[in-house]
């Protein structure tokens, strides 16, 4: 069996690591909210900061750290009713255009997210809450997820172009 190309190995590594963290966040979120409900209803003592930790940390990781996997699996919602009628070669061109546009969109988001993260870190940004709750580290979670997603798309494109050389 031929060895997997380096690009594929890297794609798998990035998406697997980030998905692992996303799964961890998903379960942490579920357990925290469930425990909060149980403690609140049975003992009248909710866990302080449940909403903040969920919204600013767990959800950021759940969503953004899944983006690399989403790109690896090509599982965006799209409408292929026109493109499906074309030949595989033309379909691949549209696929590459789609990937490039996705990279462009993610790049805009990353640019905005990096600026925000730097600003947020400098000011040690906190959430509007009745206690001090730092949210600046979460801003870097957005950057990390987007950057990994862009890396996966780039590696995929490199692999795609290498496998379909122009003749």
């Amino acid at each position: 069996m031929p060895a997997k190309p380096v690009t594929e190995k890297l794609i798998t590594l990035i998406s697997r690591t980030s998905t692992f963290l996303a799964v961890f966040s998903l379960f942490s979120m579920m357990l925290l909210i469930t425990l909060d409900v149980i403690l609140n209803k049975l003992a009248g003592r909710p866990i302080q900061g449940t909403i903040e930790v969920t919204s600013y940390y767990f959800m950021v990781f759940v969503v953004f750290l899944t983006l690399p996997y989403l790109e690896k699996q090509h599982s965006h919602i799209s409408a292929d009713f026109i493109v499906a009628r074309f030949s595989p070669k033309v379909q691949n061109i549209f696929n590459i255009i789609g990937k490039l546009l996705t990279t462009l969109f993610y790049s805009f988001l990353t640019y905005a997210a990096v600026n925000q993260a730097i600003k947020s870190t400098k000011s040690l940004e906190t959430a509007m809450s009745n206690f001090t709750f730092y949210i600046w580290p979460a801003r870097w979670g957005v950057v990390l997820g987007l950057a990994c997603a862009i890396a996966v798309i780039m590696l995929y494109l490199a692999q795609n172009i290498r496998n379909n050389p122009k003749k």
Partner: protein
Amino acid sequence: MENEYIGLAYLCAGLLLIAVNIPIGVSLGLVAFAGIVHMLSEQAALSLLVSAPFNLIGNWNFSAVPMFLLMGFVCTDGLLTNGLFRFLRIVLCKLPGNLAISSVGACALFAAASGSSVATSSAMAKIATPEMLKYNYNKGLATGVIAASGTLGSLIPPSILMILLGVTANVPIGALFIAGIIPGILSALIYTAMIVIRTIINPKLAPRSEDRFNWENFTQSFKEIWPLPTLILIVIGGIFFGFFSPTAAGSVGAFFSIVIAFLKGNYSLSLLKTSSIKALEGTATIFVIMIGTDLLTRMLAISGLPDLLTEAIISNNLSAIEFIIAVGLVYVILGMFIDSIGILLLTLPLIIPIMESMHINMIWAGILLIKMLEIGMVTPPVGLNVYVIKGAVGDTVKLHTIFKGVSWFILMDVLTLAILIAFPIITLYLPNLAK
């Protein structure tokens, strides 16, 4: 060029990108970004890009999406939905067309757990359709009933479409969930009545099965299925009585579905990993579209296009009902090409301002929109659910036979829709009671 036309031009460009298979969220996000740069400035567009993702993620209600998706995938992967069809065919064995009617009920319960029309249709087509075909049921009925009943998933809570509608249109999700209960049951009852009447008129459509009621079978299959309805009752009952928010209900539902799945012995850590990755994938997919829609909403608001449309509709004396029916027709057309989440999020930025200006009750309208979206899932030539059924049954049943079979159910859906439009109290009774 006036801003309204600029907005319209960018919206059309977005639709064009969607048509050539560019991801919906990316298409909308990019044209919205370009539109804002065109009308305002690059700085304004970038500042919206900063706020949009965090505003959405910071919305506590959006956290309900991964929780309910996880609960749904655990219920289906952990086989908690197994046995529903078998149980109902024992209970309903005396009714004409009992296998088809049992399919409606099983689909409704399956859909309530999974929250997905496609997952429901795909699973039930493998369980119920072969049984119906074995008893020489009409092929159109045996497949059409699953395609149509699968759509009940979005109407019967918990429903992902309702969460997205609630987050986007700022409508209480708990109220939407509760509002969907009676319309969902009504849809199932109207399907059932149609099957019974058609079978009485033409018994060949659904020959009698050999099912006979006996307590031993009943208790045995009840033991297998009881955790699922109980879980759904806890989740929906908890929201109805104000015991917990939709997000908390989703978390509790997901947690207990995992516990039950392991206790039943059909589940493993590897399946749990599969369920959670599917839930993550669904959440991220929805999120990308929602970011695109959020930016599109802002771009359109800057352009003033929604105001122009609202004025045009009001000056033409279009009533609320006429407007809703017009939206329904658009949904049926779009349903041929795009899945229901995409259609809902794509159209809401234009629909919400108009509905607000018409002072339409958003809970009532939301349920109607969801019902219409689901009709779009089974309308020819490209009803998504119909293709799911076709994929599951293979060459046994031809595509046009499924469409023919489902057409009876579409007629019933139109009847249900007419009833829901004529009597808003059917939809609003339970949310009013919950207040």
